[in-house]
């Protein structure tokens, strides 16, 4: 519960006071004489002024919101006045018959809402109410007489009640619930902790993380049932075995899997070995059905050690070499071909079956790098300067004093180190060796809540209470890298400098340049755009013979590369208007563009004798894995016309204007249409002939008044993209029917074709930027946004707009926001009389 005695928890203390001080005030509608606001301290008091004229006329306000001023702010007062004076009359007149008093059609009774708090706590219901009124889907259009002005009054009021906030009150940002590492973060953290890419979540089979607010990194949704804990125990055991070796002798013989090399290609094997003489055995063969030979070269750290002829039969070649201790690279190259004219024939390959490295001839073999990084002391390590062995306890202390701060991502105290040492000691007591005992200690640290959760601490600053620098380091690193903070971040945190705005800006710039920032592609972008769902779509392969899992993969990769480019150097507008994208030969053929000057269909590797016109593309292209930046054809722009987005918003057998329209509104513009009613009425007319064009079928859809309201918002956008088929290829006809991608948006703007549609949408860059910022902030914070976050979002957007909404400036704005730094303003700095922005 709330603690008041801890000076660090000053903010909690303040919040507790705020909770205790519940002032409830209500206003009578204008027919009543206006009462002065009543403010009561201490016990919560609710005062109601019942109106004789309105069953629904009274609404009460409580300022019990966390961190808010106990005084009712001006905004709430104004909203309450408007509610009684303007909103209630409209609702009573047009909605009362079905949604008030005894009637609660669809479970909605507006009479239930007697306070602004209650409306705000049922925000999804009220968003839906706003949506259906705005879309003219409610009141039932057949009989409704609600005027446009009346709709405007109600929808504007709901919008304000749910989203507007008095930023002058300096509301404290809502707290982030302690976050458990999700699978992706766990795997990355282990990789960065130990330099081993083990992906334990895959090896052990973690239970999938549930998604909340559109992302799988949300604190309140990341639960930890016993089964998840079991997996963590298994993973810790696996990791400790991979990291800490117990028998040095096994490293005298190491084997590596081979590769198949084309002309001038190399296979590289990084090794970490001790000083001494080694023998490398390479098992090879030259090609399939070849009669001549090729030359292979063995390089040690780019120095040629040996060269030999590889014949078209399985042979083992032994090479002796000598090295000094450390990291080295072994490299084998297909260096020469006996017949250079035919060296690129597919079957002429240097096949390396396996490599085997034996050594050193004398002395002890080296432990692997990951072991040496962790096990920095042994019981027989000699102490300086006395020269005596340090012993078991001291050795475990040295190991965990070094590694534990990295595992817990902060400074640790002696007691915490000692607790892990005790686990090691129990291992030794049970008869385990030193290395085995260390494994148990490591396991303990890796299942500790300090590692699995991101518990945060606070410090007081001149502005109020904020996250400490270690907390900032982790928020930054898990936001931009989905992984632990690196040495640089931890160092700045230790120096208490990370919170300085200039330092943070510099760190953001550095972190975005780091390859680890690509985790934003799979972590943020793929979830924002819904790309992860592409793995699940089942396109009908008979209807779309070009479809394959390779095409599916290429579509995802294209959008990821595009987002990566925009994230580093682009603006929000690029999502809509970019005239470039990234393709491999497969996608180049798909889009009908050249690949590096070549006709991409010629790069497809047809089987000899197969029909040249066969559209199936299950096999590989030459240069399949090469990706280049290309200019888009005239009819495509930005993300809306990328194959991934178009396939994602289709059904298995045909494109869906409804899904596309909804996706654009929801994902790109951040203005989702209201959800379909709970019981979708069946459309009797919907049994239209299957041959009808999409447009004709949608006309039927929209002729039903109860569907028409929302569909006239969604459908035109989807129809504007109807030139793209279910997998995103351009088409002029569907079957025999001409595609007419013309339409009229709900505001009356007319367009013809996808490019015009996109140009119209691009005038809404402010909305796209706001939506993008809200999504990214949700991801960065690991919680859903609340009304109080509106102030931060506005500030971020304002600053970024001056930079043409570059993604970098938005990211910078987010990490410097009060919500991200968890700044709770010092109440003594609260302005006495709040003023609205």
């Amino acid at each position, binding site marked *: 519960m*709330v603690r008041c005695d*801890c000076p660090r928890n000053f903010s909690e203390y303040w919040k507790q006071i705020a909770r205790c001080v519940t002032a409830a005030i209500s206003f009578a509608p204008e027919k009543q004489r206006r009462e002065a606001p009543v403010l009561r301290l201490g016990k919560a008091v609710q005062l109601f002024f019942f109106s004789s004229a309105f069953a629904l006329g009274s609404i009460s306000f409580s300022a019990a919101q966390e961190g808010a001023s106990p005084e009712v702010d001006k905004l709430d007062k104004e909203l309450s006045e408007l509610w009684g004076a303007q909103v209630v009359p409209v609702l009573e007149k047009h909605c009362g018959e079905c949604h008030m008093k005894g009637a*609660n059609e669809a*479970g909605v009774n507006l009479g239930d809402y007697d306070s602004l708090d209650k409306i705000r706590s049922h925000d*999804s*219901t009220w968003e*839906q109410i706003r949506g259906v009124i705005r879309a003219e889907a409610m009141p039932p259009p057949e009989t409704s007489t609600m005027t446009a002005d009346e709709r405007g009054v109600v929808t504007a009021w709901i919008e304000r009640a749910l989203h507007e906030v008095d930023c002058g009150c300096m509301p404290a940002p809502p707290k982030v*619930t*302690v976050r458990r590492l999700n699978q992706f973060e766990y795997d990355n953290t282990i990789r960065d902790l130990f330099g081993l890419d083990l992906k334990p979540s895959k090896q052990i089979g973690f*239970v999938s*993380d*549930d*998604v*909340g*607010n*559109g992302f*799988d990194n949300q*604190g*309140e*949704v*990341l*639960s*930890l*049932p016993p*089964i*998840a*804990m079991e997996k963590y125990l*298994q993973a810790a055991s696996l990791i400790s075995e991979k990291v800490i070796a117990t028998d040095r002798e096994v490293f005298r013989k190491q084997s590596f899997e081979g590769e198949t090399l084309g002309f001038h290609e190399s296979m590289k094997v990084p090794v970490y070995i001790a000083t001494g003489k080694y023998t490398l055995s390479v098992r090879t063969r030259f090609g399939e059905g070849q009669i001549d030979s090729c030359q292979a070269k063995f390089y040690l750290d780019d120095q040629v050690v040996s060269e030999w002829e590889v014949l078209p039969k399985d042979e083992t070649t032994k090479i002796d070499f000598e090295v000094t201790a450390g990291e080295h690279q072994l490299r084998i190259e297909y260096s020469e071909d006996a017949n250079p004219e035919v060296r690129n024939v597919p079957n002429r390959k240097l096949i390396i079956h396996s490599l085997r490295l034996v050594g050193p001839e004398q002395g002890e073999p080296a432990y692997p790098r990951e072991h040496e990084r962790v096990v920095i002391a042994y019981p027989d390590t000699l102490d300086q300067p006395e020269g005596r062995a340090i012993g078991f306890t001291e050795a475990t202390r040295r190991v965990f004093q070094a590694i534990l701060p990295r595992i817990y991502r902060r400074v640790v105290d002696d007691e915490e180190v000692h607790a892990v040492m*005790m*686990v090691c000691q129990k291992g030794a007591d*049970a*008869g*385990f060796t030193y290395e085995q005992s260390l494994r148990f200690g490591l396991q*303990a640290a890796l*299942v500790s*809540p300090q590692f699995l*959760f991101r*518990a945060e601490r606070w410090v007081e600053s001149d502005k109020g209470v904020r996250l400490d620098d270690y907390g900032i380091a982790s928020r930054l690193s898990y936001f931009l890298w989905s992984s632990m903070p690196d040495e640089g971040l931890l160092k700045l945190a230790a120096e208490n400098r990370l919170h300085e705005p200039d330092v943070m800006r510099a760190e953001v710039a550095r972190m975005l340049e780091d390859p680890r920032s690509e985790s934003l592609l799979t972590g943020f972008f*793929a979830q*924002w*755009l*819904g790309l*992860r*769902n592409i793995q*699940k779509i*089942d396109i*009908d392969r008979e209807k779309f013979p070009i479809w394959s899992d390779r095409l599916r993969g290429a579509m995802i990769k294209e959008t990821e590369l595009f987002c990566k480019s925009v994230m580093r150097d682009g603006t929000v507008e690029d999502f809509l208007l970019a005239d470039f994208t990234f393709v491999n030969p497969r996608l180049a053929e798909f889009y009908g563009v050249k690949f590096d000057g070549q006709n991409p269909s010629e790069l497809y590797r047809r089987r000899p004798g197969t029909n040249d016109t066969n559209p199936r593309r299950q096999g590989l292209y030459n240069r399949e894995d090469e990706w280049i930046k290309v200019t888009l054809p005239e009819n495509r722009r930005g993300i809306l016309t990328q194959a991934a987005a178009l396939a994602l918003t289709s*059904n*298995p057998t045909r494109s869906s204007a409804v899904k596309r329209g909804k996706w654009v509104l929801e*994902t790109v513009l951040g203005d989702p249409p209201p*959800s*379909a*009613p*709970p019981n*979708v009425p*069946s*459309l009797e007319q*919907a*049994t239209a002939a299957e041959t009808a064009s999409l447009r004709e079928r949608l006309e039927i859809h929209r002729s039903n008044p109860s569907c028409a309201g929302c569909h006239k918002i969604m459908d035109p956008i989807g129809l504007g993209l109807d030139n793209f088929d279910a997998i995103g290829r351009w088409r002029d006809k569907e079957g025999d029917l001409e595609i007419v991608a013309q339409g009229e948006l709900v505001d009356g703007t007319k367009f013809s074709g996808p490019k015009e549609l996109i140009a119209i949408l691009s005038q809404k860059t402010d909305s796209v930027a706001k939506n993008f910022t809200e999504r990214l902030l949700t991801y960065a914070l690991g919680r*859903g946004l609340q009304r109080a976050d509106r102030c931060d979002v506005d500030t971020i957007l304002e600053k970024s707009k001056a930079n043409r909404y570059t993604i970098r400036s938005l990211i910078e704005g987010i990490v410097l926001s009060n919500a991200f730094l968890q700044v709770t303003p010092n109440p003594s700095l609260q302005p006495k009389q709040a003023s609205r922005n």
Partner: protein
Amino acid sequence: MTHEQSLPSGRIPSSMRLDRRTVLRGLGATVTLPMLEFMKPALGASAEAPPVRLAWVFFPNGTNADRWVPKGKGKEWELSHALEPLAEYRNDFNVLRGLAQVNAQSLGDGPGDHARSAAAFLTGAHPFKTAGSKIKAGRSADQIAADTYGRSTRLASIELGTEEGRDAGACDSGYSCAYSNNISWRSESLPTGKEIQPKSAFDRLFGVTGGGDPKEQSMRVSILDFVTDQRKHLVSQVGAEDNRKLDEYFSSVREIEQRITRFATPVQLPEGTQTPSDKPSDATEHIRLMYDLMVLAFQTDTTRIASFMLANEGSNRAFPMIEVKDGHHQLSHHENKQDHIDKIAKIDRYYCEQFGYFLKKLKETKDGEGTLLDNALVVYGGAINDGNRHDHHDLPLLLAGRGGKGLSTGNVLEFPQYTPLNNLFRMMLDTVGADRGDFGDSNGILAIS
């Protein structure tokens, strides 16, 4: 230890090698495991009478009721199109009609019937509408049973599925995906989670990892002691919401601790049992492997309580193996199009066919004097009746098995409309002595003689 038949292990010519499915299937069908000493129930049922097993099998998106619901009642009824694959077992189950899960209805919360129906199915609770914060449904029937009845086995309960929970965006109209992807709820705010991979499920059930070395065992306890002690480092730093999360952590630790101290020995599986390897090749194999695991878990008394989501609620899986190329959810909103209705019927029938496989295995596996099916109560159903209408009453439900008490089977039983489904669950809980008197919206114990 002897077996009537043990499957060969070791090197077998590849042409003779059995695939993993065959092996697992073979087990249920041909191997009768003698009750091993350590498997004997420590608490509860006496050693002579085999324990009662409880299972819940959930399917999403409702049905095409016209072709699902059989005609007739009592003993006089005809199998429907969807239930035809169960013909051989028509005397081993009852068709239950009239039951409802009213808390899956919107009750003012607007759209989101899929999310609500999964969350309400086993809990009878009305889930709190939220995309992320303050997730809340209710405790589920299987977990109530697990608390007491489950304590006598190695695992209190198992939860299986075939689809990952990972989804982008919202799962259903403003509801967090936690609702659509779980039917089992450990506490009202904590979904139990489920195993998707047959191999992980196998490892978890039969304890391949770890082993029984007492030294290793004592270290596992030491590690859990260590983490339990960590609480003191955390409490001073966190607030109330955080404490709820940490409670999840520490109670999970405690459960595991209790389990490993009580059930230290791994389950002895028949020689030749092979671990299912990677991801199964298709949905049919996946579903059947999961059914195999449930049978094996019941057979070895590793657990007595199981739940299985054939797919997540709202699943849009296509069924190429039965020539249904459109997604299930998309089809379920069939708009009265005949071809959509036909395809829904095909899917309903397909799922029944797989359920028939499960019943077959249960019936073929000896258990005490009878078979596993004699000693089990298996619910097969969902909390949406018609996928096009999203209604949550007159739910499609089968109750298979005789619950170790010779329950009468082979009937279509009609209950008054809107009889709470939780009444059925209370009957099941009552059978294993776990009924607590109230449960969600229940108003009694369903009477089935």
